[in-house]
C-alpha cells in the first residue's frame, strides 16, 4: 500500500488537530464549553460522550461546518473559523450510516467521490487503483454496492473518504454492526494509515471501537471529563469494581445503594457490579451486609473495569434530553 500523504502541500505539523478554549453557544445554552485538546499527527484518537454532551457540535466545528462562538481550532494547519473551505478540502469523513450510493457499482461510487473531492484527472487512475487495492476490492469493481457484505462496504466507504489523500479523517461509529472479523480487519487498515501519518479522529458510543484508539477523550456537558490511553482511563475510574453474585438481585441493589462505602450498584446479567473505594476491604463487608439483610450471597470478586464502567462513572450526569442540531 502506498502512502496516502507526502505529496500534500501542507507543511508538517506535530499536531494535526489543535483545539483551544473552543466554545459554542446556541442562545443561552452552552453546547461546547472551553474544550482544549491536541491530537498528534498519526494518532488514532477517540472522542466519546453521551448523547447531548456536545460531541457532534464539536465535530461540526472541526469539519468547518459550524463557526465557533469563541476560541480556536486548527485542523491540518487551517483555522476552522477563518478557513473552513481549506479545512473541508483537507479532511475525509466516513460514517456507518453514511453515504455510499447503494444502487451504483463499486467503481461508480469511487468515481463519484473522486469528482466530489476534485481529485485531479492526472491522479485519478492511480487513486482508483489505490482504493481498490486498499479495500481489497480488485476484480469486484462492477458489483452493485448494495450486494456487498457489510465489511466490504465499510472498506469501500473508507476508500471513498480518503480518495483525495486528506491528512485528517473523521470516522463516526465506522464499524457498528459489522461482524467482528471484518471489524478487526478494518481497524488494522486504520492503524496502517495512521502509521503512514494520517490522523484519525473517531467518534463512537461503542467501547469495542474505543479500545482500538491510541488515546481517548471523554466529553461530558460540553467539557473534557477525562483524557488518556484506554488503559490509563481504566485506572482513572473512581473506585474499584466488584462482581457480586446474589439472590434476589433487585432487593440486593436497593439494599446496597444505601450501604456505607458503596459508590454505585447496578444489575449486570445474573450478578451485580458494585463500585467501592477499596475492593479487598469491601469483599467481607459486602458479604456480611447482604446476608444480614436476608440476601443469599454467592461469589464476590474483584474484576477489572471495562471502558464502559469508566465512561458511566465519569459522565453519569443526567441527559439534558436535547441534541443540538445546528
Amino acid at each position, binding site marked *: 500500500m502506498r502512502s496516502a500523504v507526502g505529496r500534500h502541500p501542507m507543511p508538517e505539523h506535530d499536531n494535526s488537530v489543535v483545539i483551544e478554549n473552543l466554545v459554542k453557544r446556541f442562545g443561552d445554552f452552552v453546547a461546547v464549553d472551553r474544550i482544549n485538546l491536541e491530537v498528534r499527527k498519526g494518532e488514532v484518537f477517540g472522542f466519546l460522550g453521551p448523547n447531548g454532551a456536545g460531541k457532534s457540535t464539536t465535530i461540526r466545528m472541526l469539519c468547518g461546518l459550524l463557526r465557533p462562538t469563541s476560541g480556536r481550532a486548527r485542523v491540518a494547519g487551517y483555522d476552522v473559523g477563518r478557513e473552513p473551505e481549506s479545512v473541508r478540502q483537507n479532511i475525509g469523513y466516513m460514517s456507518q450510516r453514511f453515504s455510499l450510493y447503494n444502487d451504483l457499482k463499486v467503481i461508480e461510487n469511487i468515481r463519484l467521490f473522486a469528482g466530489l473531492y476534485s481529485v485531479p484527472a492526472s491522479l485519478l487512475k492511480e487513486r482508483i487503483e489505490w482504493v481498490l487495492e486498499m479495500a481489497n476490492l480488485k476484480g469486484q469493481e462492477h458489483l452493485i454496492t448494495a450486494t456487498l457484505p457489510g465489511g*466490504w462496504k465499510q472498506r469501500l466507504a473508507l476508500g471513498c473518504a480518503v480518495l483525495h489523500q486528506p491528512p485528517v479523517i473523521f470516522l463516526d461509529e465506522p464499524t457498528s454492526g459489522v*461482524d467482528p*472479523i471484518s471489524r478487526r480487519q478494518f481497524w488494522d487498515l486504520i492503524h496502517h494509515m495512521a502509521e503512514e501519518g494520517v490522523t484519525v479522529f473517531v467518534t463512537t458510543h461503542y467501547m469495542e471501537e474505543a*479500545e482500538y484508539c491510541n488515546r481517548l477523550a471523554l466529553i461530558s456537558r460540553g467539557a473534557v471529563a477525562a483524557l488518556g490511553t484506554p488503559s490509563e482511563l481504566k485506572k482513572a475510574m473512581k473506585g474499584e469494581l466488584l462482581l457480586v453474585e446474589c439472590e434476589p438481585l433487585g432487593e440486593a441493589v436497593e439494599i446496597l445503594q444505601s450501604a456505607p462505602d458503596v459508590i454505585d450498584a447496578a444489575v449486570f446479567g445474573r450478578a451485580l457490579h458494585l463500585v467501592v473505594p477499596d475492593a479487598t476491604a469491601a469483599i467481607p463487608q459486602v458479604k456480611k451486609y447482604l446476608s444480614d439483610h436476608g440476601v443469599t450471597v454467592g461469589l464476590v470478586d474483584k474484576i*477489572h473495569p471495562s471502558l*464502559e464502567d469508566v465512561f458511566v462513572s465519569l459522565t453519569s450526569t443526567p441527559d439534558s434530553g436535547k441534541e443540538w442540531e445546528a
Partner: protein
Amino acid sequence: MHEKPQSAIIADELTKSFADVRAVDHLSFDVHAGEIFGLVGPDGAGKTTTLRMLAGIMPPNEGTARVADFDVVHDPEKAKRHLSYMPQRFGLYEDLTVDENIRFYADLFGVNRTEREERSTRLLQAAGMREFRRRLAAKLSGGMKQKLGLVCALIHRPRIILLDEPTTGVDPVSRRDFWRILYELVSEGVAILISTAYLDEAERCHRVALLHQGRLLFCDTPNNLKAKLGKSVLSITSSEPRRLRAELESVVGISSLVLTGDGLHVVVDDGASRIPEFEARLKNASIPFNTIQQVTPTIEDLFVNAVGSGAPSHA
C-alpha cells in the same frame, strides 16, 4: 433457587429465505418467563427476520414459532395479545409530547387511566425521564427517544417483549437506564427477547443465542459461552503494538493477535503458563511493553474463534 422454567417463546427449526438468501436457517431456541434472552450477531445474521416471524408479521418458510403457547401462524391474534414488539424504528409521534405519546399507546391497548398513570410514572422514573413529560418527542435525544419507545411498548403490561436492536446509537449511560427497566420487568416474570449487534451487550443477558448468517453458533449463558472458548486471552500493553504483533506472529499455539489502541489482545492455548516465555521473548527482541496479564475472554473472541478468520475478504 429457580422454579422449573416456563417457555414463553419457542422457536423450532424456523427458516426464512429471501430470493436465494437464507436469512434464517433452521433456528431453534426457547425463552423462559423471567429471563432476558439475547439474539446476538452482526448485521445480516438474521436477527430482525427472526423477531418478525415471532411477532407474527412474517410467515416462516419452514418451522414453527409459539408465543405464550399459541402458534403465531395459526393463532396470530391470540399470540399478539400477550406480546409487545418494538421494531428498530418504533412509531413515536414527533409532534406529540412524551405524555401524549404514552396516552396514545395506552388508548390503543385499552389501558385505563388509573393504570396508565401509575405505570407511566414508574416507567418514566426508571428511564430518568420524569422531568420531560411535556417535551415534544421531536426534541428528545436519540437515547431518550428509544427509552420513550420502550415505555410506550410496555404500557399495557405485556408478558412477552420482543425488542429489535433497541440500544443502537444509544450512549452507555442511557443504555444502563434501558437495561435497568428490563431487569425490573423480568423480576416480575416477563420474558424478554432482545437483539443486538454489539457482542459486549450479550454479557447483560441471562442467556444468549449467538447467530451468524442465519445459523445458530451457540446458545448458553454468557459465562458458559466464554468457557467454551477453551483458550485463554492475554492482554499486553505496549507503545509499539505493531512490532509486538510481528514478533509474536510465528509463535506456536497463538490463534489470534488483535491490535488495540495501546497494545495487543492475544488468544492462546494455556495462556497463564506462557507469560514468562512471552516476557523473555519480548525483552530479547527489545520490544517495549508494560504488562502481560490474563483477561477474561469476550464473546467476540468466541465468535471469531467459531467463525474462523480464513479467506478474510471473501466471507
